[in-house]
């Protein structure tokens, strides 16, 4: 468990640093890939609700601290995202091939919408059309492209926990 926490912290820290310094510079019609979100989805799918929520909270704090934005905003959004995806992984999604892609697509949409609502509530100037119509399609495409390599990497780092159903070979 401690090894998992260390690996999770490491991979999300690297993702957060890469996100704020490099990936945010990619700008296609206001859309940019969100490596932190994709990594969080992969980690949460493989390790479940508690791990996903805690990882989201920590990654959000790093992003908000590095960008000097309102502390807690990204944490709140990523905590909820991590929890939901963890829940999906624990119940039905983990072993399905399409699960990472479906999760990334749904979370990208909900995250964009949630961020928009939260910033609107905080009084920040937030254009719904720019976020949901201009930026979202390209952000979704970028995130889906990132999903395969990121999920493959996380799968190597976090081996799926034993399901409890072991193969039994009867003798005789």
């Amino acid at each position: 468990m401690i090894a998992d926490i260390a690996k999770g912290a490491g991979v999300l820290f690297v993702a957060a640093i890469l996100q704020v310094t490099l990936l945010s510079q990619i700008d296609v019609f206001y859309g940019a890939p969100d490596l932190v979100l994709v990594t969080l989805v992969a980690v949460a799918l493989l390790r479940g609700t508690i791990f996903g929520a805690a990882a989201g909270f920590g990654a959000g704090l790093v992003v908000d601290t590095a960008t000097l934005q309102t502390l807690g905003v990204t944490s709140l959004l990523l905590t909820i995202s991590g929890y939901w995806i963890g829940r999906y992984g624990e119940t039905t999604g983990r072993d399905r091939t399409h699960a990472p892609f479906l999760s990334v697509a749904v979370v990208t949409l909900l995250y964009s919408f949630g961020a928009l609502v939260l910033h609107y509530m905080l009084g920040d100037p937030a254009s719904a059309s720019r976020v949901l119509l201009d930026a979202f399609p390209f952000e979704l495409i970028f995130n889906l492209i990132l999903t395969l390599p990121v999920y493959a990497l996380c799968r190597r780092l976090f081996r799926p926990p034993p399901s409890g159903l072991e193969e039994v070979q009867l003798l005789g």
Partner: protein
Amino acid sequence: MAGVLVLLSIALITIYFRESSGGGLHQVQSAGATVLRPFEIAADRVSRPFRDAYGYFAGLVHAKSQNNRLRHEVEQLRQRETLNLSAASENSDLRKKLHFINSPSFPRGYGYVTAPIIAQPQAAYQQQVTIGAGSSSGIRQFDPVVTGEGLVGTVVRVAHNVSLVSLLTDDTTSVSATDVKTGAQGVVKAGASFDHVGKDQQVEQGDLLVTAGWKSAGLSSIYPRGIPIGQVTSVGQNEVDLYKHVQLQPFVNFKTLSSLVVLFPPKNR
């Protein structure tokens, strides 16, 4: 567990939102940003050669057409420079004769700090960047930020070693500006429109806009006079509105920024 983290996030937002910029959470964030700064700079340095290579090849695509356009522009600017030199000389003579006392203007009388951009905006609607210099370098809140091309924005949040810069294109950014050619006064909003320009004032397509740098009753603009802002792209008006509709194109290309210059009066240091 997840519920506790959600409540903790909401508590963080509430406290951060309500406390002053010198509050406890801001201090913690400032310390955290200082710790993260080396990682951000390292990531930036590692990726720099790749970005430069991409920029080089991307630039080649438009090089030929850009070259022709720039040659034409250089010819025009040479002609204009000759006229400007003569006008500047005449202006200087007249000022001496009138004993004219000038207000602070860019870049005379202003100190500066050059800082790299270490973090980019995280969402489509955020027009803010983080730079790798803060209060330890003499930067204060509301210091103007420029590049060689023109006005970039304002410092809105300062930590010990990093600062948050709100770009000219941010919806909340307003800059009092003046038309260099006609002297028309107005307010540049979000780097896109030149507002509050009366119908009796002259503004034409292609006019250059610079910061107005006003001073009135002990108050003064945070921007020194004369920082280039942009070029007017369209002018319109109708019978209903009190003001003209003026659109502009900023001189600064906000997508290719890598380092910025923060200006401050010498007394800031």
